[in-house]
């Protein structure tokens, strides 16, 4: 299990080793709407550019405001942490990430950049047409860049590897539905995050091994109240770890770096690019793309019930406008069902003690029996 965290913590070394081993190119991406299968089929390694929490005195020059996630990616680029990344691609989602895509090019020169338009109205009658056209343009440009022809066989293989990964991750998440889950929220988050910086075939092997070992893991007993995590993307499992240290357990998340990343599969069909277009348009909505047809509220409620959660932590990054705009409605649907929730904002650093006090108060609210005020 600890291997996932190791890869995540040493993700740059992992990618460098991958390059040395395969001689392939690494393509960094900013958003989970990037059709990774196409990159994989071109024998390149798609790597999600994730932020860290390092002192930043480089990016004020280029960026104002912006969430810590997008800004710190640029900081990481400026510090040369992504020097092994050959190209970058941005599949339209949040505008701060677009800014990061533009500003990253100021600090590092890439041999390939590609901007893929993904409809904001993903459920429109005509959205698949424009997505399909973008998919074709992306495939063509990748072929030119890598000098590899992307064959149907290669696409089939990539789809198979990615779908397998999604199924295995769903199996891991299923284990969290148990009364006493044998996988913690922090561990699960590290697994998903690791999958986004690794060759999926390696990740699949690791998942298969873990799934074999897990049944032998002993139950630690009652884990505490079951919480759900909703909100902006993140690049580590620090919040989950903090919650779990305080005697609660995160049983499910609805983050674009978490469950939303792998939740739905590609349904194969003759036209591979169309199958991929439909998969990416059909993934659980990110807050930005949840506009006309609101799928997010229903999805959140479904997860809440399926995983038998007892409360929700809504963690928004400061300056995360899609969630800032979406929250009123999410608060409303949770209030309507009397599902307790606690809202907090994250930034580059998390003032741990202050956060602990808030989380403790919330956990006690969810499970008042834990606090004995009288007798």
């Amino acid at each position: 299990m600890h291997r996932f965290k190791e890869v995540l913590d040493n993700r740059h070394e992992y990618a460098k080793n991958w390059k040395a081993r395969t001689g392939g190119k690494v393509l960094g991406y900013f958003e989970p709407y990037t059709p990774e299968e196409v990159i994989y089929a071109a024998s390149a390694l798609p790597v999600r550019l994730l932020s860290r929490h390092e002192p930043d005195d480089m990016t004020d020059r280029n960026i104002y405001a912006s969430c810590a996630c997008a800004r710190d990616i640029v900081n990481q680029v400026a510090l040369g942490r992504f020097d092994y990344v050959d190209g970058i691609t941005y599949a339209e989602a949040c505008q701060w990430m677009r800014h990061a895509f533009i500003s990253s090019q100021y600090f590092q020169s890439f041999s390939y950049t590609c901007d893929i338009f993904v409809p904001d109205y993903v459920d429109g009658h005509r959205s698949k047409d424009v997505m399909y056209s973008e998919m074709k343009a992306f495939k063509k440009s990748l072929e030119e860049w890598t000098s590899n022809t992307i064959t149907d066989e290669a696409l089939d293989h990539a789809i198979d590897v990615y779908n397998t990964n999604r199924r295995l991750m769903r199996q891991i998440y299923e284990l969290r539905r148990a009364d006493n889950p044998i996988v913690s929220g922090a561990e699960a988050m590290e697994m998903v995050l690791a999958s986004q910086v690794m060759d999926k075939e390696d990740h699949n092997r690791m998942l298969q091994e873990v799934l074999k070992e897990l049944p032998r893991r002993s139950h630690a007993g009652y884990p505490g109240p079951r919480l759900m995590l909703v909100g902006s993307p993140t690049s580590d499992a620090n919040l989950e770890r903090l919650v779990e240290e305080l005697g609660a357990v995160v049983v499910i998340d609805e983050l674009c770096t978490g469950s939303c990343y792998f939740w739905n599969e590609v349904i194969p069909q003759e036209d591979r690019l169309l199958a991929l277009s439909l998969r990416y348009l059909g993934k659980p909505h990110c807050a930005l793309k949840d506009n006309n047809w609101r799928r997010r509220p229903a999805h959140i409620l479904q997860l809440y019930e399926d995983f038998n959660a007892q409360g929700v932590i809504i963690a928004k990054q400061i300056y995360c406008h899609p969630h800032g705009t979406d929250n009123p409605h999410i608060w409303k649907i949770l209030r309507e069902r009397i599902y307790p929730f606690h809202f907090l904002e994250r930034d580059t650093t998390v003032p741990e003690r202050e956060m602990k006090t808030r989380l403790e108060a919330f956990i006690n609210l969810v499970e008042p029996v834990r606090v004995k005020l009288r007798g």
Partner: protein
Amino acid sequence: MGIQRWEIRPLEVWAKAKEMRAKWQQSIDDAEKEHVLLAQGNCNWAVGFPALRVIEDNPVGAMMGYRSSQFSRECRAAGEILGWGREICGYQLNCWGAMYLGYQMDGSKFPMRDMVVPFPDPCDQHTKRGQAPMDYSNIPRWQGDSPLYTGPHDPERDATMIENKVGTTLDIIADIERIYGQIFDDEKFIESINLAHRVREYAAEVCLSMQHIPAPLSQKDLYSFYTLGGLTKTDPEETVELWRMLRDEVKWRVDNNIAAVGTERYRWIEAHPPPWYFLRYYRYMEKYGAICIGSQYSHMMGGPFEFKEDGSWGPRVPLNSWGERPIKTREDALRAMFGDDARGHNFKVDEVIRPYAICEFAKAYKADGAIMPLWRGGVGCTVTRKEQGLRLSEIGVRVLHYEGSQPGDRTDQDETRLLDMLDVWMESQGLRKLED
């Protein structure tokens, strides 16, 4: 050395603009009484429906920020209680806060919307726009996209993107016809598109005239006109007439060297909307003989611009040539509408994806400096702003950034400090106030 002083005169066509703006406001206030539908959005095709009026939260929120900081603060508080983040566009917070409160600035009832048709825009806040009324009162919402990409032009991608907009809009029109039983008047729509082209021609001429020294208008004048025909839809013919009158008057001012600022000796541009509650900073800059000659934003009525082969800056489509393309059907009209805006020097797209475009703008308008706000709220107002500043610095245009919440939100704006910064900035360029 004496200071060159140009003759100044008030703009005569201003009275007409004021009257039209008041008429538009009345039409919105009367919508409920007259039993017509009120759409949240900015759809240029709305004129085709006999009983549909459109209102966008941008001008409403801006006007609130301009007129009453107290009321907009109450509105924002009403939104924040329900979960709105502070980084959200102030226009939205103002407008929807008033909806939550249930009343407008003057105490009258808030005009509830009957549907939402947000206009395609690269700003993410526009993408989510109109969700508040949809979530609040269960009204339908239709969304168009604003497809864009960076990198070299790809005609195939462009064509698909235009078709996406045209097709989506055809669907929306058909849906509204089906659901509300209103019949779309193609002839009226086609006529309005033809007229809109004429507005654009006049507007382009007005914008180009700002290259003249002395500038015939100031940024404040431009702002007074650009919503008429842009965000606030009134009678199309009257709008064309207004722009023709403005064009004529501006032309006369250019020919006679009538200036907006008599002591013009420094020309600056800005980016995106100004702090509507603090327009005083334009006047303050005039004390230095400095005039704001516009922004890509305030010049948007002129349509897409580009650098010509001879190095001049002009409208992307040559003036007076729109008539060459026949518009016979609803689809033709939509294609003309979206096709013109699709690529090229479109202010909003350029702001978002091409920080270099502002340099071309600065060069064409002979700008000495640029004052570029950094807004904490409303992503589209801030994205790439600092990149633009860097690009302008590289070509020798001095740049001043200042911070605030959002053009319609006074919360974070430190007005005294902004004036101090203006002094620092001007003096560091060797200029001192001509008057105090």
